[in-house]
């Protein structure tokens, strides 16, 4: 079999690291007793009073418990709103918009509190998918550290003002001649634009400066030159057969990742086994991005040689198409060959080919345009008729603003949801220049590095409290409607600008002035209140726009002038936006901070990713002799001072290059976001006024010998498949150890003998060998079934009498479609009240996620392919956890669910130890409730109250799911609350449960439809159709635990797997 013994998670399971094995085995035992004792001492230090308090408490608790039950009040409404039935959820369509991030959503509210985000299936862009960021927006609503009222900033404190006073103060300082700048990230709201216009009318010397922290200015400029359109074309990955991406992380962060992932999945469709719809994705990069990890083939190219690589691809395409070529410096052999092969594929695909690039160099983007034009992709895979407005930022404008401020030309600066002091390469200079502006107003939901330097703060509503409209794409509109009354004394930004402009467009006497304003903007267009209400209800609105003729007028003869000159430094570094915290806008969101990066699997910070080498026997080397992740390395980037950065050795990073994510190292983000990771924005280079997301002059110093405190990487946590029985002796041995020391071991050529040797965990096959593979998989599954039949237990009888009656739930996960984006993990946390534990707890293997995405590598160690495997409780029908519970707290339901009764659990953790999938989580501390005693509470960040204890945060808790307390085990429940709800609705309506009535939280969050939940007993269900695929398998099927989560083996569209 192709993948036999060639899958690994990290270097440690390859090298069979003894310390790691020890840690993993002891996952459910406090890993380091000394550590725990030290912690307890630290928290209890010298506290005789605490001891007495505890004594007193236990006494009084006993007394209280024996007395009457506390009186509980029940408050009805005075007048109940018609559409609210207490206990039933109400859903509103709205949108998630932060800068250029956009996702149409449905907001679930209970008793007036938004508690969960679902995708809006009516959207033509996302088809109902979401991203981790969209899922997490509901938590940012309940952020304790939001700005709570308007005011004047004096001595770093916000002195409260009334809105009237603030308006008088600001308007009083503006004159008709004032030089005003509004600085903002990309905005997509037509109504907000209109408000800006109204402001400009009152103050004609106003300029709106739009920029993006991770910018696509070069694309806008290149398209303006080549097509006369200063926009980004609409991409159609679902129409592409071959995609070549130059560093564009389109599944993770680039332009519109949810939309692209939705499209991409349509070309990872393997349901028709004989004719699978699988595109070929070639990724050119130096680091390991999420999108790169999903690619079929990766071509490693240094960041400064991206332009050259594009030119080589162009030349290869041009040679076949008979176009003029570009004079270009040579490129490394390996990359050159691969690019030539890619060109062949591209030309073959013709109009169904697509080249994308995230380069912020106009000449390079023009080469990309030229290639797409040569192969005839415009009109199919790219289309200006569906142009995207999700990036409007102009790097030159923000630089011009900096210079204007320095020279004192700016009288007033309005910072609207932007943070140039943090997220531009010249942040410090920007902060200094701000001092020269006499009036500075910050408009945002939270304090940030920039608006704390302002004079006044006019806090904005959160998205979920706002009215608004979004225009993300040509012909596509989307709306925002509030789902809760504003929690604080805030006012929507558009309303503020209209007020300051004294505009008569704003009816200040109305109950909701901004609503009236937005409505007025749409009434004519839609033709009345009823139509407006209808679009609000559906959340999205599409129009048919006139077809555009966009001729290409690029000049191929001048192509390639101005592409990046290759650097000559020993090391280069590339910077990518973080999947979780983005460009830094989401830093104070603990869900996103704790979400492990899908590729590195590190959380609570960013780490310098360095290449790692396998020496072919049993050891790994990295740069500067670093042998451990989390080690601190001195690195000087861009000729500046040496920075001490924590290192993560990442497979697939090109030699001589490094990689790091942006978005961390905030200083004024609030306690959750501040002081985690390192701010990399100051190290971005500039070329031609445009920000470059790499640095080609890096000097690597020596390791400091220290280690990152509480290095929170979950890569090694909860791995499975270590134990095995030695066939000769019959003893239980460590499988990977045996594999390594045995004579069979022949080094890298016979495949990595990692922990996952010969166990059915991960299956993949090159596309052209799929038939052979399916046969082998079938044999293997038959063998497993044969083994499983050797039992005394009458499983078939149970099945007939119990599971075949009513429902038998099952989950199907298509690993071809899974991109590892982690939207499901956040959705799961929101739905099931899964707690946040903080960096230190994560570093101790204590993360609580019910659903993790395991990341495996296969192929070559130098340039591996990646396999993402969402792993949650497999709801085994013959579950090993159930047998070992001494109190029967976990047992099996007749619907095939391994149920967990928290109140029965006494915390022996036997079940977690006995779980072959390592999906059970133990509440080591009181993570969600406020415990009376400090040592029982985790410290997530530097906050005063333990996280989760403040009443604001607790508004997010799903009232249908128990909040677990300290000392109990918890795990995935297949969203049993949703199952029960679905069943009850069917019973109420007197009908059978229909397929799709019950969807798990992970399923609804998924942008690619990789997760499908269903009833095995419903023969017509989608689940059963999916299971018919010969690529279907169960993880660890041979150990007779009868899991009910099916996976589909991954097809890799490449012919040269393992040959690299």
């Amino acid at each position, binding site marked *: 079999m192709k993948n036999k013994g060639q899958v690994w998670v990290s270097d440690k399971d390859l090298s069979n690291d003894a310390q790691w094995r020890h840690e993993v085995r002891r996952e459910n035992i406090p890993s380091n007793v000394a550590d725990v004792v030290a912690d307890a001492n630290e928290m209890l230090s010298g506290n005789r009073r605490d001891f007495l308090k505890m004594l007193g408490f236990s006494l009084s608790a006993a007394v209280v*418990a*024996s007395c*009457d*039950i506390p*009186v*509980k*009040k*029940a*408050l*009805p*409404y*005075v*007048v*109940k709103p018609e559409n609210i*039935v*207490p*206990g*039933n959820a109400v859903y509103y369509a709205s949108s998630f918009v932060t800068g250029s991030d956009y996702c149409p959503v449905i907001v679930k509210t209970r008793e007036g509190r938004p508690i969960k985000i679902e995708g809006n299936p009516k959207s033509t862009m996302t088809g109902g998918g979401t991203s981790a960021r969209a899922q997490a927006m509901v938590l940012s609503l309940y952020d304790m550290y939001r700005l709570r009222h308007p005011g004047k900033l004096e001595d770093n404190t916000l002195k409260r003002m009334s809105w009237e006073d603030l308006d008088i103060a600001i308007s009083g300082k503006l004159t008709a001649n004032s030089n005003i700048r509004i600085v903002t990230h990309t905005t997509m709201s037509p109504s907000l634009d209109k408000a800006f216009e109204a402001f400009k009318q009152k103050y004609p010397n106003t300029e709106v400066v739009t920029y993006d922290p991770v910018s696509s200015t070069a694309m806008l400029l290149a398209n303006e030159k080549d097509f006369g359109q200063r926009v980004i074309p609409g991409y159609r990955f679902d129409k592409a057969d071959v995609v070549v991406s130059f560093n564009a992380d389109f599944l993770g962060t680039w332009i519109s990742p949810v939309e692209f992932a939705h499209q991409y999945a349509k070309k990872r469709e393997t349901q028709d086994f004989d004719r699978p719809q699988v595109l070929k994705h070639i990724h050119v990069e130096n680091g390991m991005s999420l999108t790169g990890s999903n690619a079929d083939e990766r071509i490693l190219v240094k960041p400064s040689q991206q332009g050259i690589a594009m030119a080589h691809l162009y030349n290869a395409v041009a040679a076949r198409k008979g176009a003029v070529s570009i004079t270009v410096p040579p490129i490394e052999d390996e990359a050159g060959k691969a690019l030539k092969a890619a060109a062949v594929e591209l030309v073959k695909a013709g109009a169904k080919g697509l080249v994308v690039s995230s380069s912020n160099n106009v000449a390079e983007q023009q080469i990309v345009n030229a290639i797409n034009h040569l192969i005839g992709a415009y009109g199919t895979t790219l289309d200006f008729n569906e142009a995207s407005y999700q990036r409007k930022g102009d790097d030159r404008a923000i630089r011009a603003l900096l210079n204007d401020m320095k020279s004192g030309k700016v009288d007033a600066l309005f910072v609207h949801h932007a943070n140039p002091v943090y997220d531009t390469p010249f942040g410090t200079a920007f902060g200094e220049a701000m001092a020269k502006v006499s009036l500075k107003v910050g408009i945002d939901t939270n304090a940030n590095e920039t608006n704390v330097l302002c004079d006044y703060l006019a806090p904005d509503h959160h998205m979920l409290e706002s009215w608004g409209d979004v225009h993300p794409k040509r012909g596509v509109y989307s709306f925002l409607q509030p789902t809760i009354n504003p929690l604080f004394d805030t006012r929507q930004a558009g309303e503020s600008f209209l007020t300051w402009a004294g505009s008569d467009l704003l009816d200040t006497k109305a109950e909701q002035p901004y609503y009236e304003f937005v409505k007025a903007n749409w009434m004519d267009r839609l033709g009345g209140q009823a139509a407006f209400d209808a679009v609000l209800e559906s959340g999205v609105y599409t129009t048919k726009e006139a077809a555009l003729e966009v001729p290409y007028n690029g000049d191929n003869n001048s192509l390639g002038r101005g592409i990046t000159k290759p650097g000559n430094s020993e090391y280069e570094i590339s910077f990518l936006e973080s999947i979780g915290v983005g460009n830094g806008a989401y830093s104070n969101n603990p869900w996103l901070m704790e979400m492990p990066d899908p590729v590195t699997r590190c959380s609570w910070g960013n780490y310098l990713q360095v290449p790692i080498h396998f020496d072919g026997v049993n050891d790994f080397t990295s740069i500067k002799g670093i042998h451990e992740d989390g080690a601190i390395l001195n690195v000087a980037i861009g000729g500046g001072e040496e920075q001490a950065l924590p290192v993560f050795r990442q497979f697939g990073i090109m030699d001589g290059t490094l990689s790091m994510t942006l978005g961390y190292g905030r200083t004024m983000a609030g306690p959750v976001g501040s002081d985690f990771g390192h701010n990399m924005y100051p190290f971005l280079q500039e070329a031609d006024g445009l920000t470059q997301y790499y640095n080609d002059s890096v000097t690597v110093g020596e390791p400091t010998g220290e280690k990152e405190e509480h290095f929170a990487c979950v890569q090694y946590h909860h791995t499975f498949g270590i134990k095995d029985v030695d066939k000769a002796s019959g003893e239980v041995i460590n499988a990977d150890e045996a594999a390594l020391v045995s004579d069979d071991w022949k080094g890298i050529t016979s495949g990595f003998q990692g922990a996952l040797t010969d166990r059915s965990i991960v299956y993949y096959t090159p596309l052209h060998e799929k038939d052979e593979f399916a046969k082998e998989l079938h044999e293997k599954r038959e063998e497993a079934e044969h083994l499983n039949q050797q039992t005394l237990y009458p499983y078939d009888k149970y099945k007939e*009498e119990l599971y075949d*009656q*009513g*429902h038998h739930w099952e989950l199907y996960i298509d690993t071809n479609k899974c991109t590892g984006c982690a939207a499901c993990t956040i959705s799961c946390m929101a739905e099931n009240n899964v707690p946040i534990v903080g960096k230190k707890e994560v570093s101790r293997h204590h993360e609580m996620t019910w659903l993790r995405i395991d990341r495996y590598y296969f192929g070559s160690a130098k340039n591996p392919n990646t396999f993402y495997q969402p792993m949650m409780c497999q709801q085994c029908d013959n579950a090993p956890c159930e047998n070992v519970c001494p109190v029967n707290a976990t*047992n099996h*339901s*007749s*619907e095939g*669910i391994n*149920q*967990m*009764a*928290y*109140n*029965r659990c006494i915390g022996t953790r036997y079940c977690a130890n006995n779980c072959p999938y390592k999906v059970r989580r133990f509440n080591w501390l009181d993570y969600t409730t406020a415990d009376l005693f400090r040592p029982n509470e985790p410290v997530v960040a530097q906050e005063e109250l333990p996280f989760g204890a403040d009443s604001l945060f607790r508004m997010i808790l799903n009232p*249908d*799911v*128990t*909040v677990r307390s300290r000392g109990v085990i918890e795990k995935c*429940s297949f969203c*049993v*609350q949703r199952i*029960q709800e679905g*069943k*009850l609705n*069917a*019973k*109420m309506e*007197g*009908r*059978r*449960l229909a397929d799709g009535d019950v969807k798990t939280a992970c399923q609804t969050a998924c942008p690619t439809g990789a997760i499908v939940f269903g009833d095995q*007993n419903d023969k017509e269900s989608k689940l059963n159709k999916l299971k018919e695929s010969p690529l279907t398998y169960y993880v660890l099927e041979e150990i007779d635990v009868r899991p009910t989560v099916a996976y589909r083996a991954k097809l890799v569209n490449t012919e040269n797997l393992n040959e690299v």
Partner: protein
Amino acid sequence: MAEKRFIFRAIQLVFALMLMAQTGVFGQASAAKGKSLFKANCAACHNKNMKDDMTGPALCGVEERWADYPKSDLASWIHNSQKLIQSGHPRAIELWNKYKPITMTPFPSLTEEDIESILMHIKEVCEKGPATAAAGAAGSGGAPATKVDDSNLLYYILFGLFAILALILFNIVSSLDYVRQLEEEVPNPKKLSLMSGLKSTGFKRVVTFFLVVFLGHFLVKGAISLGRQQGYKPDQPINFSHKIHAGDNKIDCKFCHDGARRSRHSMIPDNATCMKCHKAIKVGSKDGTAELTKIYASQGFDPNTGEYIEGFKDMPMDEVAGIYKKWIGDNYMSENDLTSLDAAGESEVEKQWKNIVRSLTNEFKSHVYGPIEWVRVHNLPDHVFYSHRQHVEVGKLECQTCHGPIETMDKVYQYSPLSMGWCVNCHRNTEIQLDNPYYEDYELLHKKMKAGEKVTVADIGGTECQKCHY
């Protein structure tokens, strides 16, 4: 030592016998058991003397009246009378015609044995208890005090018997020991005194053992009942009577508790729901203006004019007081045919208004406007999921099944224990509505039903943990 061992064994035997006797008494169906079941389930509607009608008919001769029909029919009447009426049972229809629209609370959780016990108790009262019946009818309200409880009497007798037996045994032991001493020619042979027997280590050990067992038993029992509040009957901010509304006026429960049909919560009605009727009925039959004015004051309805007051939320409290005091005063005058308020009237108005303010305000809320802070009577722990619509709409249960004879309660109390055992027992005994098309997938259950077997909630997984805990 020998004698000590003997004493130990003897006493052990006594206790063991006593324990056996005790469990024997409580293990069978009996009139005593029937009595407690009657008290818990029937006495709210059926007269204790069994001779006079109350809400429900007198129960003497009930078995004779049902003698024409199979015994199971009476049982099904008790389990769910409405079902039997609908099935066209002649006796059921006869009863319905006599008593409608009062329906008998269904008791699906009573087993055959329970019903047998209750019938035994009824028979016993009818036959033996004219005196007791008289005492009950005289209205002293309590259980007949003169009569010793059957089970207790037996227990005391047995205890006495065993105590005598123990003494006799001790005496034999002590005599035997004395004889032994004589035979062994021990100097100063002595009979064992009772005191020395009681002081012996063996006896102490036995006592300690049983103390631990009994204390442990009570501790566990006590711990289990922690947080349970059957019979909980708190004062409410409004002296609202379910008897008047649901009993006398026969308003459907779900008219106000509308959530029971469509939500997990039955929902305490909003203040506006009260206004559906009380816009017209402004003076209560029991409390006059004293309680109803609270409803008006909580939402700014002016009963003098029949209009809602504009800007009521922000109206100063003395102005608010003026409006409602006028209303109370006017009513007082018209009731007593006065043209102006007398001193008693003044104090009555003051008293009522003070009470209204006390009921509608608290330390965080000084205005009377706002939701009424009812005291929750039925509290389930946070880790229990319960859905009213599941039980009321899908399971077609009567509200009274769990909430008891709510239509007879002036002040609501918690009727059922709301314990997990109580829930689970009902799930084991209650048949499901298998005709709901939802259950079509359950082939085996349909077969079972056709074979005449009961298909209960437990058969569709109703006793599994994650039906209620998640």
